[in-house]
């Protein structure tokens, strides 16, 4: 109940941030861009790629665009999550109640997850609607793809919160986004064989790829559900990586927050 109370207030607070609406508008703009690539809109008459492939490319472009902006929103909000409370002194009033520090962190993180999930599914709804109107067909797999992305948002939020203890508020979302894009880039050759034609990752790159959180893997696997393309992935190692990093960043955040004085 206490965690939920903190999360509700946090959610309301996030709805007041301009950045939420800015990112929402940007993401919708990108969905429209993706839509412009759909078969009916495309002017490619040479048929070098078939209509189905064109459709999948458009769907995946839209999907990745939505994920990018959702992750960006999650990072921007998470970077301010605890530091802003600390700077404004609101944390002291909440912690003067029978609320443990871990409950407080859990409540605040839940608020970010709620707003990120709200943003993600709002965009997914717009995305599905536009493609349904355009192509008169409904692809339910896309909802499943977005659902799979929720653990990514949890991990990304926790990673950003943990990083926010070590760096200024303005730098934290940039560093988080850099790590996210790096994992995305590093996982490319492990998901797309054609990339290996131009880039065979060295052992060092493979080590870094395995060492970092596998945001990229999860995103590409999620995207594969849209076009139902087959992907070879090790679900156990991917789950283990996500779980270990989620727990690591959770305990680190709580540990560091417990050390703080207000």
């Amino acid at each position: 109940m206490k965690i939920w109370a903190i999360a509700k207030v946090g959610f309301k607070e996030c709805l007041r941030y301009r950045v939420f609406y800015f990112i929402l508008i940007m993401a919708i703009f990108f969905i429209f861009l993706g839509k412009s690539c759909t078969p009916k809109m495309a002017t490619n008459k040479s048929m070098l790629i078939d209509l189905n492939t064109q459709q999948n490319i458009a769907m995946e472009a839209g999907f990745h665009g939505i994920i990018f902006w959702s992750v960006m929103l999650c990072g921007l909000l998470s970077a301010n999550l605890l530091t802003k409370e600390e700077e404004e002194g609101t944390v002291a009033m909440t912690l003067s109640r029978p609320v443990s520090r871990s409950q407080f962190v859990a409540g605040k993180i839940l608020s970010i997850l709620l707003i990120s999930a709200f943003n993600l599914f709002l965009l997914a709804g717009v995305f599905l609607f536009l493609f349904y109107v355009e192509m008169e067909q409904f692809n339910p797999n896309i909802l499943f793809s977005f659902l799979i992305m929720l653990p990514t948002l949890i991990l990304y939020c926790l990673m950003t919160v943990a990083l926010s203890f070590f760096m200024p508020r303005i730098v934290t979302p940039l560093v988080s986004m850099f790590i996210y894009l790096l994992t995305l880039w590093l996982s490319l050759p492990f998901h797309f064989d054609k990339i290996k034609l131009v880039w065979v990752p060295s052992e060092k790159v493979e080590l870094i790829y395995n060492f970092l959180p596998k945001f990229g893997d999860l995103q590409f696997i999620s995207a594969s559900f849209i076009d139902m393309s087959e992907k070879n992935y090790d679900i156990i190692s991917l789950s283990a990586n996500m779980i270990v990093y989620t727990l690591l960043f959770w305990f680190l955040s709580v540990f560091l927050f417990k050390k703080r004085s207000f």
Partner: protein
Amino acid sequence: MSYAIEAENIVKNYGRIKALDSLSLKVNKGEIFGFLGPNGAGKSTFVKILLNLVKPNYGSAHIFGKSVNLHTTRRNIGFLSENMRIYKFLTVEEFIRFHAELFEIPTKKIKSEVETALRTVGFFDERKRRMGTLSKGMTQKAGIAQALLGRPELLLLDEPTSGLDPVGIKELRSVLLDMKNQGTTVFLNSHLLSEIERTCDTIAILNNGKIVQTGSTSDISGKNTHLELVVEGFNDDMEREINSLSTKNMTNEGNYLKVYLKDHNEALTVHRIIDQKGGKVMSFSRMGESLEEIFYRLVKNGDSQ
């Protein structure tokens, strides 16, 4: 016996600055305890330690026998901060409701508890206003309402009268006395000496992180009673003899004398000396030291007892 608040040898340093220096304190259940001290004496740091917002470098504190490190200890505490930082986008009602949820008040009772708290401070009609639009005094009233939620066993109030008008101060005094009558312990951190003198049963005066005086209001002012006399024909002979009976030299401004006796039974001796030396006592009274005088003496002159 378990006390409402029990602190032992608390030391808190901020870098080289010693905010609290081996502070030990006991607050009995059911009393109104006044915690006095000049700015920077360490009062707020002590309150923050009680709420586990700040960790001491050394020492321990317990509330109703439970360590302040446990978050469950705060189930019995209502807290009001001097500079209450709030979520400005919430309405007064949402703000109080939020705290009721954090205070683990059962869902069914929240509505009635919120209403009771708001009515107690006379703020029910303002419940739909956003916290960000309230004046300092109004914010303070909302803060008092949230502190009263669920009738806590201990109220920690940090400068509760800050921003309140005289009517608000009077109403708050009545609320505190009412809470006391119902068995609530009140820990009052304030600069308003007259308010402390009127309301509190026990007082502790803090200076430079150390308690320099503690005791009941009557005990503290009784310790430094003195004689105030108006005498005609006062001379040096009288002064010499009277000073031999005193803890410190008497002060005199014209015919007005202040005599600090070692033994209060010697008051009549002073009268006799003046008579014998040819003086005439026009008025003679035994006075206690006001809290303001005690505070000034202890804090300004560092004269601890």
